């Protein structure tokens, strides 16, 4: 296990990304959607920033993509399902979709499919804390906090103060 981002770095990189997002997208009719589980907390931080910036309450949603996975029949045990919560009308919204790490792109594919089943957004932009490469689908993030080149047997684990004891990003070698 090796550390690639300290707690302070995670915080500042994400804050920088929030400012970049606020600069680059029109700040009307916004919504933020996080992918469970770590994406949810990064999305909350972005929502706080955008709400402060626009002086409006930007709606926040959470997606659990379990039911849209393309590998359900290949995983040995069913993942525990949590609720998806989209407490606003998706149609016409400018949505920033948030996850902690992008890898193959399959999670994002599932999230896009699920989100579009809720309505027809004006657009969806993708923001991730870490891009580790290795895409298997033609899906690219619009906003990236940090790129890392790592091997296939390695996984990136992001820890956030909202749910973990500490904050930081680690590379772990899979057995």
């Amino acid at each position, binding site marked *: 296990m090796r550390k690639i981002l300290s707690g302070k770095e995670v915080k500042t990189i994400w804050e920088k990304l929030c400012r970049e997002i606020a600069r680059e997208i029109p700040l009307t009719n916004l919504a933020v959607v996080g992918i469970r589980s770590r994406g949810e907390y990064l999305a909350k931080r972005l929502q706080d920033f955008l709400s402060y910036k626009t002086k409006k309450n930007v709606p926040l949603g959470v997606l659990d993509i379990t*039911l849209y996975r393309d590998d359900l029949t*290949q995983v040995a045990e069913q993942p*525990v399902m949590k609720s998806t919560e*989209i407490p606003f009308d998706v149609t016409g919204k400018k949505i920033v979709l948030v996850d902690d790490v992008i890898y193959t792109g399959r999670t994002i594919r599932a999230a896009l499919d699920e989100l579009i089943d*809720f309505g027809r957004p004006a657009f969806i932009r993708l923001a991730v804390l870490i891009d580790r490469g290795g895409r298997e689908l033609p899906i690219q993030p619009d906003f990236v906090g940090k790129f890392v080149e790592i091997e296939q047997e390695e996984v990136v684990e992001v820890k956030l103060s909202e749910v973990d004891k500490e904050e930081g990003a680690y590379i772990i070698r899979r057995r």
Partner: protein
Amino acid sequence: MKKWKRKHLISLRELNPEEIEFILETTHSFREILERPIPKVPTLRGRTVANLFFEPSTRTRMSFELAEKRLSADTVNFSPGSSSVLKGETLLDTVKNIEAMKTDAVVVRHSSPGIPYFLASRLLHSTIINAGDGAHEHPTQGLLDIFTMLERKKKIKGLKVAIVGDIRFSRVARSNIWGLTKLGGEVRVVAPPTLLPPNIEKLGVKVFHSLSEGIKDVDVLMVLRLQRERQKESFIPSVREYRKLYGITLDKLKWAKDDVLIMHPGPINRGVELDPEVADSPYSVILSQVTNGVAVRMAVFYLLLGGEGWE
């Protein structure tokens, strides 16, 4: 508990409390899907479910079929009236032929208790879901009833539930008794002695023959249908007398708690076991039961069919 290990759902008797709670938690997530603009998810795409109802059913059958469709499974339906059963085919042959068409799950309802066990032991790969077998069990009904109680009363532990009526012929009663007692609920059965099976108290329930005593201070009043089609002999002197002694009317509700929930698995014999004024009152959660039924069945399909399959 974070892992689901079972291939079949045949009874609540065989489940442990953690497994029941796990299904109920999963149901909670599926309940949300039913409120979406497009209440459908692609989870079981490419999976096939056969619904085999050897007994009449409206609610359960439609509920299972909706649950299957909302998970994007393909469904095939069977009813004995229009099938080779009329030509003398045995049950096992019928089901084996259906399985040979590559189904992943078989939902079965049958008047003989134990049929789902029999099929589970004889079929090669299909998941079996019991949709009611004789007077044995109706596990998804038990689960949806418990889910509905949980939704309204927040916890099952210590909840006083009276099941009133035709317990003897009721698989719904048995599934509820198993499920509720495992979760720490206090279950009473209220019925004339002729409508109670022998030794019912061994399941951990209190037996009452008087309605006023049986439903005193209960949180939930589950009213069962008088199943006249199962009664080949006479178990009650008359329907009128039954209604007088055990039929739930508004004035009899005063014996229960003020915020009592009225439940009924349907179909209701209005004016027999349950008066229309009670069935349509604010106490009644009968239609919530039906809505929750779809979510419970989606959760069950997800847990039984979602993973890789079973050796």
